[in-house]
């Protein structure tokens, strides 16, 4: 068990014939993800690693009935792919694409409010539930089944923490990257709610970074949670006014620095680790492992 997805989740890959789309389809299939179809306009009828490709999401939805979709479509067409998935009634949409215009994403999120869909991302590594399914691009080999939940704004830093956990004997119930962009479909709090309800999760690691106030915004909920949360916030050394790689990682209006975030979390009594190793150590301490 885990959150959002399991072995039976039927997954559609939008942008399946592109370089990254096909590469990651192969990796997801190896992980055991139940991929039932792919979409690339104009490429309907072919197969990618045995997965049937359709010209439109609508056709794919009729034919193979996916419950989730993962998007590898280039940035300028990604919003359209999300609208198509929302209109098709797909419940879970994971958007991997990096570099989507922020105005496009605002329109998608406004549209999302009147739908039954949830979007994770964009600019994210997706979600992995060890032993069940993986939707996204996390490396296959680092995971280990267990009871730690991870929610993160980052990609490779998340892999690093998963890797340290797994090597230290701590498995994960689910690892979710919610994305490094300023506008994202699912917030920390929404993910924490799912982990709180999930019987397979015993503790949660929250990985934040500079920019915005998503970390502070989750404090109230963390305080109400029955499960322990250990946070980690990167970007202490980041200067203000400069975008640090992620479009969302920029300190501009007040509240966005790493130190402000760490202080706010610690003032609320939430444990904050100082490095990936330290985060894992603190989780072990809390769980008395």
């Amino acid at each position: 068990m885990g959150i959002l997805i399991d072995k039976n989740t039927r997954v559609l890959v939008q942008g399946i014939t592109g370089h990254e789309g096909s590469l990651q389809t192969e990796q997801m299939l190896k992980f055991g993800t139940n991929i039932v179809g792919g979409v690339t306009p104009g490429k309907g009828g072919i197969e990618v690693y045995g997965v049937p490709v359709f010209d439109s999401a609508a056709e794919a939805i009729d034919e193979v009935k996916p419950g989730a979709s993962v998007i590898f479509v280039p940035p300028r067409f990604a919003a359209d792919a999300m609208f198509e998935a929302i209109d098709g009634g797909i419940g879970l949409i994971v958007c991997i694409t990096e570099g989507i215009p922020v105005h496009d994403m605002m329109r998608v999120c406004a549209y999302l409010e009147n739908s039954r869909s949830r979007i994770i991302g964009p600019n994210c590594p997706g979600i992995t539930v060890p032993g069940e399914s993986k939707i996204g691009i996390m490396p296959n080999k680092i995971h280990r089944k267990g009871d730690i939940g991870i929610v993160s704004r980052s990609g490779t830093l998340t892999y690093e923490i998963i890797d340290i956990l797994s090597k230290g004997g701590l498995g994960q119930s689910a690892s979710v990257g919610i994305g490094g962009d300023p506008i994202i479909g699912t917030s920390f709090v929404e993910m924490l709610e799912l982990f709180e309800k999930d019987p397979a999760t015993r503790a949660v690691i929250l990985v934040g970074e500079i920019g915005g106030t998503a970390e502070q915004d989750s404090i109230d909920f963390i305080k109400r949670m029955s499960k322990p949360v250990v946070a980690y916030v990167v970007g202490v050394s980041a200067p203000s006014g400069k975008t640090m790689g992620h479009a969302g990682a920029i300190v501009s209006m007040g509240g966005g620095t790493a130190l402000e975030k760490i202080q706010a979390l610690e003032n609320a009594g939430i444990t904050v680790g100082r490095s990936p190793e330290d985060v894992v150590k603190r989780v072990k301490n809390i769980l008395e492992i």
Partner: protein
Amino acid sequence: MMLYEHASKEIFARYSIPVPAGNPVTDADEAGVMAERLGSVVIKAQVATGGRGKAGGILTASTPQEAVQKARRILGMSIKGLPVKKVLVEEYRKPDREMYLGITIDRKARRPIIMASTEGGIDIEEIARNSPEKIFRMHINPLTGIHDYQSRRIAYSLDRRNSGQISDLIKKLYRIFSDYDCTLAEINPLALTDSVIVALDAKMDIDDNALFRHEFPEEEEGTLSGIAKKYGMSYVELEGDIGCIVNGAGLAMATLDMIKQNGGEPADFMDVRAGANEEQIKTALRLVSSRKNVKAVIINIFGGLTKCDEMARGIIDVSPEIRVPLVVRLAGTNEEEGRKMLERLNITLASSTEEAARKVIELGHTY
């Protein structure tokens, strides 16, 4: 990408938002010619950053001679490290009232937000901190755009007597915000001069992710961050002496933090991105090690899409050109192969980010 004030004002003028008459010039003598035509003028440094006034980059002149003199002074200065290559020379308009109007993105609400204040001309962030009640805020649904009643309400909050003009201007500014993919469209101050509303300043910040659908003059040509961008990487220059190459922004920030925690100072931030290839790591290593103040370089890769053996090949290829010590940490996809390839060379290897950070600081000290 932040536009220059004069470029923003040209766009404003196209949307018929009133701006003072004026032109950008690169030569102080041209400022004199402009002043002969315009009378009293304001000379404003054109740099893509805030805080120009405080830095002495905005001066008034009442004669052509004074305009030449002051333009020369501003053209010789640097503001926040940016050399002033252009000044905007504008007719001087004495404001009877100064207001603030800005549109930006509210990340939490996932919508555009319009902010207006009767306290214009000064630092809006300061007002937001000290007296937030003086800022009128309104969210806009990006699917419908701004409604008339919304622009009217904002205008009433600023100046009831001139609300017609202001409401019209707010709608135009929202159209610019939306048409140009702005992350910020701001007028500070929005001034009332002789019963006319004028945008005395103009600031537009364009979403870098949306530049493909607009045409702006390339202003980053030749800089390290400009070159990095061409290769699909992201580069930020910092003040220290340890060059940092990492794949992924989060891991890069974590690496920088750890260098600082251990007493080092990062010289830069080079994010080669998840999925980095051989060409990118080679370019990154060349660029980062080319900087004079760099005493040692750290490469920290967690391979998912990125293959560690491919990274190692790139590093080996470029390493004969590198004069400073190098610490490499490879983890993830094909990590064993990558490490074996590098063991044969005179490169320090580390097995964790923390170890790599400590080692690179040590080597930087001895270099």
